[in-house]
């Protein structure tokens, strides 16, 4: 009996120690391209209702969605997102943990790079073009939408 118990203990320890520290599956991500404008009466695209509180912190009054992308992102494999301005945006997942995910957002045309760690239930709103004629483009990134 003692021998069996000892073998079981050793086997259990070996199996547990062989388990990976964290699983690394793809992360489903929803990316929306939106435009904010200072001109005209305040208006919010119905598709952007979930962003109302976050967008309310900006000086832009009118918001509309101009594009949407959904992807299962792998680690360190960039997702290219075209912008209406002709520029491109690169989104990369650097790290994903139990409760958080770390994104890198690159806007090469603006020589801007962001590294942002958010909880699973949060989203990123990132301006990606400078303001022109009272309007600017943004992207919003939501993991596990």
């Amino acid at each position, binding site marked *: 009996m003692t021998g069996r118990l000892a073998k079981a203990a050793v086997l259990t320890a070996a199996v547990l120690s062989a388990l990976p520290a964290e699983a690394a599956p793809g992360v489903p991500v929803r990316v929306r391209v939106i435009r904010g404008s200072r001109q005209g009466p305040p208006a919010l695209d119905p598709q952007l209702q979930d962003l109302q509180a976050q967008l309310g912190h900006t000086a832009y009054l009118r918001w509309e969605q101009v594009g949407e992308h959904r992807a299962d992102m792998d680690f360190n494999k960039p997702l290219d997102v075209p912008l209406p301005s002709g520029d491109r945006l690169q989104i990369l997942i650097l790290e994903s943990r139990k409760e958080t995910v770390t994104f890198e957002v690159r806007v090469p045309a603006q020589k*801007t790079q962001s590294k942002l760690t958010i909880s699973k239930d949060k989203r990123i709103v990132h301006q990606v073009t400078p303001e022109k004629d009272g309007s600017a483009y943004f992207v919003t990134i939501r993991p596990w939408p």
Partner: protein
Amino acid sequence: MKDCTTYAPMLGAREGELAAGERTGLAGHLEACAACRARLADERALEGLLGEALLRAAARRDFGDFADGVMARVGATQPSGLRALLAFFRQHRVIAAASALAPTLAALALIVYFQTRGTTSGPLAGDFEVTSEEHSPMVLDTSDGPLILLGDSDEPEGT
């Protein structure tokens, strides 16, 4: 006679067993009662005979190999080495199970410790790092997540 029924049970009393009053009463009674004196003499004689008989019986017995015999019997019933260890575990199964589980629990504790340490050492929600060569970016940490604004361009327009 009444005094005899009172003092006769005290005749076999040991030293210090009687109270001072009883001792005085018994001594007075013995001076006056020949029957009790005779009974006391008989008891003392019998006590001496018994003591001597026991000593003689003990002297007849040879205890020279007593200790060796006991040790030989103890040694014959105790297994040695690995068998002794297995016999001990057979008799104490709970201790055996705990001994077998202890390394497993220790390994589990180490795994949990290192995994927890790894988690806390990584980036935390709310860690934001924004760099730009052309703008002065601003980060607003709202309750729904970060809001990054590019801010003013560092370069004059038209360049």
